[in-house]
């Protein structure tokens, strides 16, 4: 059967499953729409949160970034998992005890200020929208590739699917849909990895295979990989080359950003008890770790396979011939991906072979002069295609390729749906009900939530068609904003007695400074060529704009403490509120009114 038909079958069957579940679990009341009536078991909740959290960035992009950089990109692995420790210890149980639906409600009540609530809502909407734009871009690319339609058509089809289950399902529909998505996503990620690990190391567990021996050479896999990449002039895979300060700040920003993202925090409102909120964070990380422990193996093994395909007789022998790339079935994936424009090669010196090496290395330039090479001939290898192309690179059966297609789409769609839910509740619950029309009926609130969701999808789809930058830049902004604005406010609300003025000043300072720093490096509102600095030569030492969220968070804390110290202390009833949040006793089901 044709690969295209197989892809369609897998993608179609998985979508039928998600939409079927969304219809089956349609939300009836406001409380079900937001929080699934709090009837979600911690393990189920953990699985859904994992699907929600692992987006196109984790599934499609991360292993590719690790494959081509090695150790230096470990920040993604530590950052995107370490945030759950902060979430479990510092936020989840207390926010569940507080017993309201949204993050901004907590900030508004704790800091007894509708201004604080407004500022929080703005931070949430900005962070979630920028994140969802990145997801919609990913949805477009993945649909375009697997349905063999244009990027625009792929994006529009994806937007309709997200709309269908997010708008009609609400949280309950999304929760069970996301459990199904998690299953598809994790199978799609691990099955090809198991095949590849068996081929290369003989170990069926990729995470262990990474540290095992390479069957073909008998040497440890990582040592062999270090050897062959350095022979081609590339940096040693396992060595530390990155600037240490920037690496630490980048890891910290990803961690704090994880604990400050509203669609992840909201998940912990949906468990029945405070003690369940603690377990739920752990279960979430279990399900995330299954992918994150596999990802570094996927990256290293793919790098190994690609290098060996380009140098089939070893790095000291002849490179692969153009004839072989065009005719050998093992190289068919190269032609397939060349069509997307994300992979390219060119026989610059006309010797009928494609030499893949690092032409920026002095040593290789000397060797190239000797051999008559005229530069690296694998001219384009987009990092984001690595995971999707991986089963084809390793020559796996076509059903595995179809499964990976379905998994990549599940990852992008589930995160987009969760973010849209966070945006819609911020608009309908916090803006409309909390601010403009407190007497709105339950029906009216539900309707406005759905309208907000539809508008958010329309905006994200439009910006996804004309993205403000690469998806990775957009996602970095979302993380930086969440880290610099939301996380410090929540933490100070629980652990300190900072007052209303302190919180508002802190959030605004963190948000604005981070936003300005990112815009200075990436262009104002991401308009190209409006940037004053670049990440290659940042404003502050070696600190790139993607790492600035951690600094923004520190500014937030410092400003909040200073302002709070010089203004009135918090009133008695807020002091009592803080104390009641700290103990689980008397936790009740959330109320929509306050």
């Amino acid at each position, binding site marked *: 059967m044709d690969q295209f038909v197989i892809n369609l079958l897998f993608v179609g069957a998985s979508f039928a499953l998600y939409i079927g579940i969304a219809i089956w679990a349609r939300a009836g009341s406001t409380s079900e729409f937001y929080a699934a009536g709090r009837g979600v078991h911690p393990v189920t909740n953990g699985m859904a949160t994992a699907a929600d959290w692992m987006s196109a960035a984790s599934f499609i992009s991360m292993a590719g970034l690790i494959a081509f950089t090695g*150790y230096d990109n*470990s920040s993604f*692995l*530590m950052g995107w*998992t*370490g945030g*759950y*420790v902060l979430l*479990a*210890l*510092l936020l989840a*149980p207390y926010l569940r005890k507080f017993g309201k639906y949204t993050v901004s409600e907590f900030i508004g009540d704790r800091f007894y200020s509708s201004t604080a609530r407004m500022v929080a809502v703005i931070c949430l909407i900005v962070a979630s929208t920028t994140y969802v734009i990145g997801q919609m871009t990913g949805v477009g690319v993945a649909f375009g590739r697997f349905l063999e339609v244009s990027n625009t058509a792929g994006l529009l089809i994806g937007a309709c699917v997200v709309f269908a289950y997010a708008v009609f399902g609400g949280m309950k529909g999304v929760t069970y849909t996301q459990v199904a998505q998690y299953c598809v996503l994790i199978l799609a990620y691990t099955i090809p990895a198991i095949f590849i690990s068996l081929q290369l190391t003989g170990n069926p567990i990729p*995470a262990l295979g*990474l*540290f*095992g021996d390479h069957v073909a050479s008998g*040497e*440890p*896999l*990582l*040592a*062999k*990989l*270090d050897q062959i990449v350095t022979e081609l002039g590339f940096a040693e895979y*396992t060595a*530390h080359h990155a600037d*240490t300060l920037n*690496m*630490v700040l980048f*890891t*910290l920003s990803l961690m704090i950003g994880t604990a400050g993202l509203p669609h992840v925090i909201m998940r912990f409102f949906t468990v029945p*008890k*405070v*003690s369940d909120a*603690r*377990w739920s*964070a*752990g279960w979430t*990380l*279990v399900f995330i*770790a299954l992918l*994150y*422990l596999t990802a*570094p193996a996927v990256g290293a093994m793919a790098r190994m396979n690609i290098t060996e395909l380009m140098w089939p007789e070893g790095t000291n022998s002849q490179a692969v011939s153009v004839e072989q790339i065009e005719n050998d079935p093992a190289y068919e994936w190269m032609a397939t991906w060349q069509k997307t424009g994300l992979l390219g090669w060119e026989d610059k010196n006309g010797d009928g072979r494609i030499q893949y090496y690092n032409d920026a290395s002095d040593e290789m330039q000397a060797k190239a002069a000797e051999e008559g090479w005229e530069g690296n001939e694998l001219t384009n290898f987009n990092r984001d295609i690595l995971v999707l192309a991986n089963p084809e690179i390793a020559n796996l059966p076509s059903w595995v390729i179809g499964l990976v297609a379905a998994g990549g789409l599940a990852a992008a769609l589930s995160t987009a749906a969760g973010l849209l839910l966070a945006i819609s509740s911020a608009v309908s619950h916090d803006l409309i009900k909390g601010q403009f029309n407190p007497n709105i009926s339950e029906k009216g609130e539900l309707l406005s939530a759905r309208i907000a969701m539809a508008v958010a999808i329309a905006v994200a789809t439009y910006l996804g068609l004309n993205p403000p930058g690469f998806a990775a830049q957009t996602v970095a902004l979302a993380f930086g904003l969440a880290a610099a604005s939301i996380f410090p406010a929540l933490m100070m609300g629980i652990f300190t007695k900072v007052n209303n003025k302190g919180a508002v000043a802190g959030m605004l300072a963190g948000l604005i400074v981070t936003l300005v720093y990112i815009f200075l490096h990436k262009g104002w509102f991401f308009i190209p060529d409006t940037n004053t600095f670049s990440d290659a030569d940042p404003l502050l030492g070696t600190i790139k704009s993607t790492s600035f969220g951690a600094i923004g968070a520190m500014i937030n804390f410092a400003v909040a403490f200073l302002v709070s110290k010089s203004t009135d202390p918090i009133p008695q009833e807020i002091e009592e509120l803080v*104390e009641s949040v*700290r*103990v*689980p*006793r*008397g*936790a009740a089901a959330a109320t929509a009114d306050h």
Partner: protein
Amino acid sequence: MSEKSSDNAYWSANLRLILGSLIIWAIVSFGFGILLRPMLSGIAVGGSDLGFWFAQQGSILVFLCLIFFYAWRMNKLDAEYGVGEE
């Protein structure tokens, strides 16, 4: 013991637990994974060193243990100090 002073004792026990857990959290990731990696370079793990393992897998496993340990410990503390939900 009055409810107020029992709550305060519960809260300080919680803070001590959080502090200890976060120290381990920082040591395995920022420590072993990045800053202290040169110190661990002598310990070989499958073709690389212990610091590389912590950066790519070890820290994630420790994070998991930390969260489950904290949940287990806190649920016990809830009962000990009589601040549980039941």
